[in-house]
């Protein structure tokens, strides 16, 4: 049952939205976290597209400056063989993003197919499909990916993405199944059925649009996982390290014991890029979370007021509060000035015990 609780949490969270998606299309973007996350991601996407044009050098070309620390010529320094690390990072962005997004698309498609089908079908099909995703959930992901990848006759970005995608759909499928289960018996789905809609139309047009935020979080989460897995695979030398990505940079750095040689510049940029990309994706996900579950939103326009569950603040004459007189008619009383701090001793409040 432990497995079900997490679902219910997600479901509960997602339930609150019902009509959110359209209420304010831009609200999602107005969230500060989302905005920062999307900006960083956008930056990396631009790098992924134009990285190889921007790169000042051929990332694989050996140069005369060996192990040079960062300079104007080589903003991130050079490697053991004089390769320009800046160019490697620029060119490597594409691989990272391609693997991340392709794997996530694959995993999401699988997750949606399996999760939604299981949730909508119910019965035996559901049992079979959810057992399948449970199995994939308990099988440790990274080791499985390593094993499969190491057996592949050929590894390139797409095969790696495929392996990651094929092994990491289960989480999404599970959450989607739970969501679908709760949506399946929603009146509007039943109503569509009663109107005579066909099953596939119900799934595609009635269920899926309402699953969008959940699918989106799952997608972003998988992108993070795929990026980290891909980089890890490159780092441990299992993926194809001739295709540049940040993990490959780290692989070469580690192989040449860059840190032992004090070549921090070989390590640090790639690591920071990964962390930044990860952070941006995580921020987007927070944004989606807050979008789905308004309770998580930190709506604190005013730093002087602490909102606490169970202790409603009393603000008289607070700048953040519209003047009552503006709304109130002639009767509007000037609020009584706050009574002088009374030493309301608890003893006077508590009644004499008479139980």
């Amino acid at each position, binding site marked *: 049952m432990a497995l079900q609780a997490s679902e219910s949490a997600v479901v509960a969270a997602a339930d609150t939205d019902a009509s959110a998606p359209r209420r304010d299309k831009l609200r999602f973007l107005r969230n500060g976290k989302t905005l920062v996350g999307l900006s960083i991601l956008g930056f990396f996407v631009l790098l992924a597209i134009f990285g190889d044009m921007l790169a000042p050098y051929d990332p694989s070309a050996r140069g005369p400056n060996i192990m040079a620390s960062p300079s104007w010529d080589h903003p991130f320094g050079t490697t053991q063989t004089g390769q320009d690390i800046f160019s490697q990072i620029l060119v490597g962005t594409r691989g990272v993003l391609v693997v991340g997004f392709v794997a996530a698309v694959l995993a999401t498609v699988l997750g949606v197919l399996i999760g939604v089908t299981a949730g909508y079908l119910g019965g035996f099909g559901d049992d079979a499909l959810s057992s399948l995703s449970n199995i994939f959930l308990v099988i440790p992901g990274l080791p499985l990916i390593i094993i499969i990848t190491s057996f592949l006759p050929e590894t390139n970005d797409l095969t790696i993405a495929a392996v990651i995608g094929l092994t990491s759909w289960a989480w999404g499928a599970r959450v989607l199944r739970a969501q679908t289960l709760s949506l399946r018996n929603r009146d509007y789905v039943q109503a569509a059925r009663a109107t005579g809609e066909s099953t596939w139309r119900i799934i595609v047009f009635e269920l899926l649009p309402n699953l969008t935020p959940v699918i989106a979080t799952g997608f972003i989460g998988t992108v993070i996982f795929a990026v980290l897995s891909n980089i890890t695979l490159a780092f441990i030398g299992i993926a194809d390290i001739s295709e540049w990505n940040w993990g490959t940079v780290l692989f070469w750095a580690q192989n040449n014991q860059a840190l032992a040689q004090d070549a921090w510049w070989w390590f640090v940029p790639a690591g920071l890029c990964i962390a930044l990309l990860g952070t941006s994706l995580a921020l987007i996900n927070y944004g989606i979370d807050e979008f789905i579950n308004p309770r998580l939103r930190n709506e604190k326009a005013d730093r002087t007021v602490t909102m606490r569950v169970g202790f409603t603040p009393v603000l008289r004459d607070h700048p953040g509060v519209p003047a009552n007189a503006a709304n109130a008619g002639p009767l509007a009383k000037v609020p009584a000035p706050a009574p002088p701090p009374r030493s309301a001793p608890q003893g006077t409040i508590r*009644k004499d015990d008479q139980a």
Partner: protein
Amino acid sequence: MSSTPPVLEISGLNVNYGLGEKAVHAVRDINLTLHRGEVLGLAGESGSGKSTLAYAVTRLLSPPGVITGGEVRYHPRQGTDIDILSLDSEQLRAFRWSEISLVFQGAMNSLNPVHTVRSQLTDVLKAHRPDMTSAQRQERAASLLSLVGISADRLASYPHQLSGGMRQRVMIAMALALDPEIVILDEPTTALDVVMQRQILKQLSRLRNELDFSVVFITHDISLLIEFSDRIAIMYGGRIVEEAAAKEIYQTAHHPYSHGLLHSFPALHGPRRELTGIPGSPPDLTAMPPGCAFHPRCPKAFEPCDQRVPALEPVPGDGSRTVACWLHADH
């Protein structure tokens, strides 16, 4: 009823959801007095601010609710008055439940699903009556349950093991645990069917007679309210638009909204009367019409209605009741 001394006086209470420009002004300039031992009914359609008012009185509004003005004064039997709005958290903790307790809308969610009924009944005793022994607490918990007609062996049950009606009754028992002066009931029976509803309400009125507490009873089911309360305040758009004894209001509602409300529900008994209903839809709190909030739906709206907010004032010629309507304004 109004002859008894007041226990709770609300004056000029204003509540906002949120701060700044986008704040929703959910409760506006409420003046209301609760007398000792009476059942004060609070009616009005969904979203009119009934729950908000009830929670504001105990400062239990969840974020982003803020109280932006007014005063809530509690008169204990002995000792000095207490201004609830100026208590600090510790004082509030001590004050709560021992003086005012609440039964929330929907008991399904009011009980902590992971603790037994017993632990939820005794923890309030533990917090407020530290000198009680554990045995005494157990005993009290058991007697509270039997008070609401549940056998004491249900103490060990978890909330999900009880039916909706039983949960609601457990909540009522819990509300009575410290013999409070005031019990606020926020739609305590809406989720229940009529049989259960009646059972619970009967139990409540019996207990009120025995224990002598005042009740604020919130519902939008007018017929239930009229049957159950002594005095009724009708809310519309965050304000109280009419306040009167239950029977009087049923016989003659002065405010057009109260009138509409009373002619919206069919009666089970008596002659089949014509139902008129209320045209239009409830106001949007973020974009309140100027003047009387009801005027766009009011069949009798006239010149001042769309400009000035009518004050809640005694009905000319009947000092016991008040109404906020230009139709009945003195001037």
